[in-house]
C-alpha cells in the first residue's frame, strides 16, 4: 500500500514536473499582462545603471514580458521589495550583499554581480537564471 502511494506521488510529480517551480506570488505569470516592477539603485556610475537596464530589457524581450522601472536609494527600494511593491532590484549587488536575508539572490550574470528578487518567486528566479545562462560569454 505504502509503495503504491509513493509510486502514485512520484508519478504525479513527474507528470507536472515541467512547470515546476511556480512562483508563490505568480510574479512571472502576471508579468505577461501587467509589468514586472523593477527597482534601479541610484548611482553616480550611470554606465552601470545603463548596463543592468539593458540586461533587463533583453530579458523582458526574450521572455515576452512587460516592465516598469523605479529609481531610488538602496534602502528605499529594498523596503518596496519587502512590502511587495517591487519584484526585482538591481544595483551592482554581489552574493555577499547585506540584503541577502531580505531578498532572493539570482546567480551572478558576470561571475560577480547578482539581482535581488522578491523572496519565494522561484519561477521568476528560474527564468532570470535561464536568461543569464544564454548571455554567458
Amino acid at each position, binding site marked *: 500500500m505504502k509503495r503504491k502511494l509513493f509510486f502514485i506521488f512520484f508519478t504525479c510529480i513527474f507528470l507536472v514536473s515541467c512547470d*515546476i517551480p*511556480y*512562483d*508563490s506570488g505568480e510574479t512571472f505569470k502576471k508579468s505577461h499582462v501587467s509589468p514586472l516592477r523593477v527597482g534601479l539603485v541610484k548611482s553616480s556610475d550611470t554606465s552601470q545603471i545603463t548596463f543592468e537596464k539593458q540586461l533587463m530589457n533583453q530579458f523582458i524581450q526574450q521572455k515576452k514580458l512587460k516592465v516598469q522601472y523605479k529609481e531610488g536609494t538602496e534602502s528605499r527600494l529594498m523596503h518596496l521589495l519587502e512590502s511587495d511593491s517591487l519584484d526585482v532590484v538591481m544595483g551592482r549587488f554581489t552574493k555577499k550583499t547585506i540584503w541577502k536575508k531580505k531578498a*532572493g539572490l539570482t*546567480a551572478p550574470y558576470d561571475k560577480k554581480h547578482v539581482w535581488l528578487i522578491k*523572496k*519565494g518567486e*522561484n519561477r521568476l528566479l528560474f527564468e532570470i*537564471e535561464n536568461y543569464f545562462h544564454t548571455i554567458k560569454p
Partner: protein
Amino acid sequence: MRKYKEFELPPDLVPTMKKVRKLEIITIAYLLSVVVVMYLVMGSSQAMKTAWLEDALSLLPAIAFLIASRFYEKSANSKFPYGYHRVFSIAFLAGSVALFGMGMYLAVDSSISLIKMEHPTIGSIYIFGHQIWMGWLMIAALIYSGAPAVWLGYKKMPLAKKLHNKILFTDAATQKADYMTSFAAVIGVVGLGFGLWWADSAAALFISFSVIKDGFNNLKNSVSDLMDRYPMDLKSKKPNDILTDVNQIVENWDWVQDYHMRFREEGQVFIGEILIIPTEETGIIEHIIKGRQEILASHWKIHEVTITVGTYWENEEFQ
C-alpha cells in the same frame, strides 16, 4: 570479596556483534556522505535544514554504540567494581539529550519561519548544459538519505533483538522510520515547487516533532535505566521474559518458603539480588551456590546475581 565475573558474549552471539559493528561502520560512512550531499544542496529550505540536522544527529547512536562496544567488555576492577556495562546507558543518555534538545530547537526555528511567513527562494543549476531546479536535487538527496537508511534499519533490527541491545534497537527503529522524515521533506520541497511557501516550514515542523518524539522516548528510557527500573522488554514494554523465567526457577526450589527478587539493567546485562526465606536451616550454603549457578546458566544476559537468606521480618523491610 569476589569480583564480578568477566563478561563475554556467548560464542553464538560473537559473530552477530561483529556483524553489527560492521553495519554501524557502514551506517556512519553512509550518514557522513548524506550529511555532505544534503549540505551541498540545502539552499534556503527550512525542511532541508531540519532533515539535514536530523541526519547529522542520527550519527550519534551509531557512534555511541561503536564507542561503548569497545569498553563494555572490560573486566571489573577496584576502581569500577561493577564493570563497565553502564557505558551503554551513558552513551544512550548522551545521544537522547542531543536528539531531544535539537528537536526542540528545530521546532522553535521552524515555527518562527512559519510565523514570519518566510518564502524560501530556491535557484537553479546547470548540469551538462541543462538547467535543473535545485529543488529536484534536494529531492534526490532526500531519497538518498531515506532509502538506504531504511534498509540499514531493517538489517539491524533482528540483530538488535538477538543482542538485546537498547542503543542498537533504538538506532534501528529510528532508521526504519527515517523514510517518513525524508518523505515529509520531499513534500515540503515539492510544495515549494508548486509555489506553496508554507509547505516547507510546515514539513520542517512535522520533522522536528518526530525528532522530539524520538528524543523524548529515548530520554525517558535512558533515565529509567539509570534509575534502575525493572528490566523491560525492548518492544512490548512488559517485564522481561528472561526474568520471568528466573522467577519460575526460584519458585521451583523446594528449599524456598518465600522470596523477593529484584534486578536492574546495566547496559546489555541484568544484575540483581534474591532474598530468600528458607524452609530448612541446613545445607543453605550448598543450595545458594547451586541455585546461583542455575540462574546464571539460564541466560547469558543474567550477568550477576546475589542470593541472600533472611527472615520474614527482613523480607518485609526488603519489599
